[in-house]
C-alpha cells in the first residue's frame, strides 16, 4: 500500500517544493517508487527542480480536474530528471519518480482559481495514481494556507510534513495547521524547519520548537549561499551529496521510510 505524505506550510516561500522534491529524490535513490503531485496549482514549482519543460506537456492536473483527461494521462516519468553534478541521471537502481504537474499557463491558473474544482475528483486522482503506478510513496506538494484541497490532502495523509521558517508569523500558522491535522488524526506529524540561518544553534532551535508544539522536528535545514545559488534549478540532494542540507533531507527520509 502507498504511504501518502503531504508537505504543507501555512505561508508561502518556506521552500516547501524544494523540500518535497529532494525527499522524493532521496526515497527514489533508496529504490522506492515515488509519485509527486504538484497541487500548488496557483504557483507550481516542482517541475523546474527535475528539469521538466512544461511547455511541451499538454495533460496537467488542471486538465484532469476539468474532466478533459484521465489521471494516468498526466503522469510523467521524471526519474532521469534527478541529476548529479555531472548532469547525468543519478537513479540507476529500481527507484522511480513519477510526477503529475500543474499547468504553468497563466490562463489555466486563473481559470482553476476562479472556477474552483471538484475536490473529490482530486482525491480519486490521488488514489488512482497510487494504484496504477504501484507507488511506494505519494508526495503531495500542497498549496500554502488552509483551504478545502489542503485539508483533503492532510486528511488522507499517513504523514504530514509541516514546513516552517524560524519566524514568528510561521510559528502562528504552524500552530493552527498542526491542531487541524491532529483533529484529522494524521498518524504521523513532523515539523521541518527550513531556511535557518547558519549562525543559529540548530539543536537548540529544534529543541525549543519541539517543546512548544509537542511535535517531533524531523530536521532543521540550513539557509546557505550555495543553496541560494542553486535556487530552483536542481536538486541539492544529488548535486551536493555531502551538504548539510542533504544530510537533513536524508534524516527526514529515514523518519518517513
Amino acid at each position, binding site marked *: 500500500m502507498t504511504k501518502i505524505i503531504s508537505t504543507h506550510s501555512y505561508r508561502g516561500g518556506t521552500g516547501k517544493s524544494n523540500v518535497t522534491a529532494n525527499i522524493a529524490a532521496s526515497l527514489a535513490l533508496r529504490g522506492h517508487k515515488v509519485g509527486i503531485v504538484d497541487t500548488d496549482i496557483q504557483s507550481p514549482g516542482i517541475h523546474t527542480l527535475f528539469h521538466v519543460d512544461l511547455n511541451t506537456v499538454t495533460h496537467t492536473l488542471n486538465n484532469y480536474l476539468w474532466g478533459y483527461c484521465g489521471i494516468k494521462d498526466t503522469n510523467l516519468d521524471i526519474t532521469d530528471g534527478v541529476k548529479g553534478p555531472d548532469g547525468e541521471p543519478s537513479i540507476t537502481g529500481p527507484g522511480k519518480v513519477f510526477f503529475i504537474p500543474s499547468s504553468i499557463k497563466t490562463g489555466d491558473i486563473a481559470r482553476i482559481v476562479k472556477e474552483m474544482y471538484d475536490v473529490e475528483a482530486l482525491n480519486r486522482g490521488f488514489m488512482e495514481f497510487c494504484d496504477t503506478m504501484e507507488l511506494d510513496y505519494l508526495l503531495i506538494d500542497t498549496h500554502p494556507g488552509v483551504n478545502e484541497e489542503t*485539508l483533503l490532502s492532510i486528511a488522507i495523509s499517513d504523514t504530514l510534513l509541516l514546513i516552517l521558517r*524560524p519566524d514568528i508569523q510561521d510559528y502562528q500558522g504552524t500552530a493552527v495547521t498542526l491542531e487541524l491535522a491532529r483533529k*484529522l488524526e494524521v498518524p504521523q506529524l513532523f515539523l521541518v524547519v527550513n531556511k535557518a540561518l547558519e549562525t543559529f544553534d540548530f539543536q537548540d532551535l529544534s529543541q525549543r520548537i519541539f517543546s512548544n508544539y509537542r511535535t517531533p522536528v524531523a530536521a532543521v535545514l540550513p539557509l546557505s549561499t550555495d543553496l541560494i545559488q542553486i535556487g530552483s534549478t536542481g536538486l541539492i540532494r544529488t548535486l551536493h551529496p555531502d551538504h548539510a542540507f542533504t544530510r537533513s533531507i536524508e534524516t527526514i527520509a529515514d523518519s518517513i521510510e
Partner: protein
Amino acid sequence: MSSPDAMQPAIASLAKTCEAIANGRYDDVDGLFDIITDKNVPESIRALAETFSSMVVQVEAREFHSGQLIEDLTETRRKLELAEAQLRKENQELKVRLDKFEVAYDEEEAKMEVEKVADTDYFRTLQARAKSMRSKYKKQP
C-alpha cells in the same frame, strides 16, 4: 618707625579686601597693591599685604580650575546621558529582534483560527471520512 596714622588706613584696607575675597570678589583687590607700594606703611604690614595678595592669586587660580572641572564634568554627564539613552534604544531594538528568534505565538488567536475551520460542515465530513478510512485500512492484514 611708621606712625599709627599710616597703619590705620592700611589695616582698614586689608580688612576690606579680606571681606571682598570672602565674598568671592577677587577683582576688588586694588587696595592691596596700594598698601604694598605705599612707602609710608610699615614694612610688616606691606609684607602681610604681599603674602595676602599672593594667596588671593592662588585662590583665584584654584577657583578658576574648579570652575573648569565643573564645566568638564557637566559636559561628561551630558554625554553619558546621551549614551544611556542610545543604549536604551538599542536594547529595545535588540529585544524586538530577539523576539523573532523566540518560538512564540498568540495561542488564543491560533485557537480561534482553528475553530473557524473546524466548525464547518466540510471539515466535519472530512474528519469522519478520514477516521473511517483509517480504521478500514487498519483492519487490513
